[in-house]
């Protein structure tokens, strides 16, 4: 049983006119096996929260803490955070020209597991995971995310989730850009990982559709850089119906 604890997190980005505060004290605790949905208007800071936990250099932490089973996540380098068990499925996965998916996955698995996976079992493992996500095996030979369609990039993120088996996954709009079938396939992938490993999930989304597949235990409303309301799955339905007006009109 692990715990990811975010306390009073404040984050700024450097802009031409100085620092702009984006996160204004985020409190959130996620335990293994729990699924927390985060919903909120565009620009409210959801991706900023995700990136800050993963350690993106663009964001400056100005206050608060993030701990994983008590260990100071904010003091870790980006790769150390991944090794500690954090995984971020990005809203906009990055293209890495000239680096094949095969090479990338193997290098990542080697880093996370602390030893190179055995060639024979590894190839099978990757093939199987790709098959389960309905990905053509020729993706393995392509360069990381290069020329992938929006939906293909998202599947590739979940492929990594399946292979790297983190303790906590942050899924930043993994459902955006997926067609109806892909949404189901990707959601099943996430549920598979959860069933096998007691994964804790922070699921950032704009739509309740994905929540029919990946059932949240908690729903948080995110507005203007912090969590402004918390509830159960029923809160998502209310948001879908009424929008964020009551949280954004200050």
């Amino acid at each position, binding site marked *: 049983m692990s715990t990811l604890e975010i306390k009073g997190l404040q984050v700024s980005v450097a802009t031409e006119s100085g620092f702009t505060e984006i996160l204004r004290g985020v409190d959130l605790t996620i335990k293994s096996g729990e699924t927390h949905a985060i919903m909120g208007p565009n620009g409210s800071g959801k991706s900023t929260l995700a990136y800050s936990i993963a350690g993106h*250099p663009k964001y400056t932490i100005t206050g608060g803490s993030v701990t994983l089973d008590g260990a100071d996540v904010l003091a870790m380098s980006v790769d150390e955070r991944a090794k500690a068990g954090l995984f971020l499925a990005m809203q906009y996965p990055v293209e890495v020209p000239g*680096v094949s998916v095969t090479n990338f996955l193997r290098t990542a698995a080697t880093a996370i597991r602390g030893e190179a996976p055995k060639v024979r079992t590894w190839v099978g493992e990757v093939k199987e995971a790709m098959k389960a996500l309905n990905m053509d095996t020729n993706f393995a030979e392509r360069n990381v995310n290069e020329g992938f369609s929006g939906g293909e990039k998202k599947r590739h993120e979940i492929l990594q989730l399946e292979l790297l088996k983190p303790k906590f996954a942050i899924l930043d709009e993994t459902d955006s850009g997926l067609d109806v079938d892909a949404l189901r396939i990707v959601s099943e992938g996430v549920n598979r990982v959860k069933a096998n490993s007691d994964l804790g999930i922070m699921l950032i989304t704009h739509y309740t559709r994905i929540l029919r597949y990946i059932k949240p235990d908690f729903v948080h409303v995110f507005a203007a850089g912090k969590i402004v309301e918390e509830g159960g799955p029923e809160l998502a339905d209310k948001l879908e119906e009424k929008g964020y007006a009551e949280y954004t009109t200050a």
Partner: protein
Amino acid sequence: MSTLTTNYLAPTGREEAWRFTPLARVGGLLDSSIALESVNSVRITNAQPGVTLNVVRAADLAALSISDDLATIRAREFIEEVTHIQVAANSQISEPLILERIGLTGKPQASRTLISCGVNSHATIILHNSGEAILADEFEFDLASGSTLTFVSLQEWSGKAVHLGRQHAIIARDATFNSIVVTVGGSLVRLLPTVEFSGPGSSADLQGLYFATDGQHLEHRLHVDHNFPNAKSRVNYKGALAGDKAHTVWIGDVYIRSNAEGTDTYELNRNLLLSDGARADSVPNLEIETGEIVGAGHASTTGRFDDEQLFYLSSRGIPAEIARRLVIRGFFAEIVGKIKNEEIENRLMDRIDSELAKVGA
């Protein structure tokens, strides 16, 4: 030994052609008071049917092209013999021909090689430059109609080497010249990959990569002369620089003459600066004398490491230095992959890795 007959002036550095080059480091190659030793510096390591090598008196095999490059003029002046490699007409050379250097002393020398490709022949030739040298070097490629030549020039020189070279192709009707230039070694390398056409339907694909670390000066001056209608050219050079006073120069001159209707050309140079104190000069230059063309374009970018790529890889647990190596290998993979030789690919990538490690980039 030739006597010194030239009455040119050594460059001062103010000339357009020499303004980037550290002339103090050319090892006497351009010094009119120093004679260059003529050397037949090229040998074939893997003889192939359909390919011959003859050493010919320079007087019996004049250069095919005009050059105003001073290093080339100097080389031609002192050359006593020319190495002539011929690919027989209609022959398909299945295995790449490997050329190694011999007879290089590390004193100022001059060498000239002519490669003639017969009608409808197909060949890949790989020149492996290694060791120490101070060399003014000329290659001419004479591609007869319908022939295809892929010429790979690997500059894997040792640390002090100076190489001033010209690699000029004359491409006849429906012939294809593919050049892959890889420059990773040497103190000062200044190469002129140049192309002219002698028939329509001909094409040139000039690819290159260079990687400069501490104090290296690596200069590539390309010149594509679209002097014939309906010819096609592509130029794609990629460079990376790391360490103090690493300097690269890329000049891409493309001329589309008034008679060169139907020309299709595009040139690209991308540079990756891996540390402060390195400098990449990139000057694309496209001159167009006719509007009746298929297309003409150029692009040049010089940038730092893409932090987003590094972040993406690191967020998957990959340590920063391995992530950087992956990104750099990835940057060069497009060019290196074109050599289609795994042994050479690995050797080049390993060299790049170890040089990176040395400068701590």
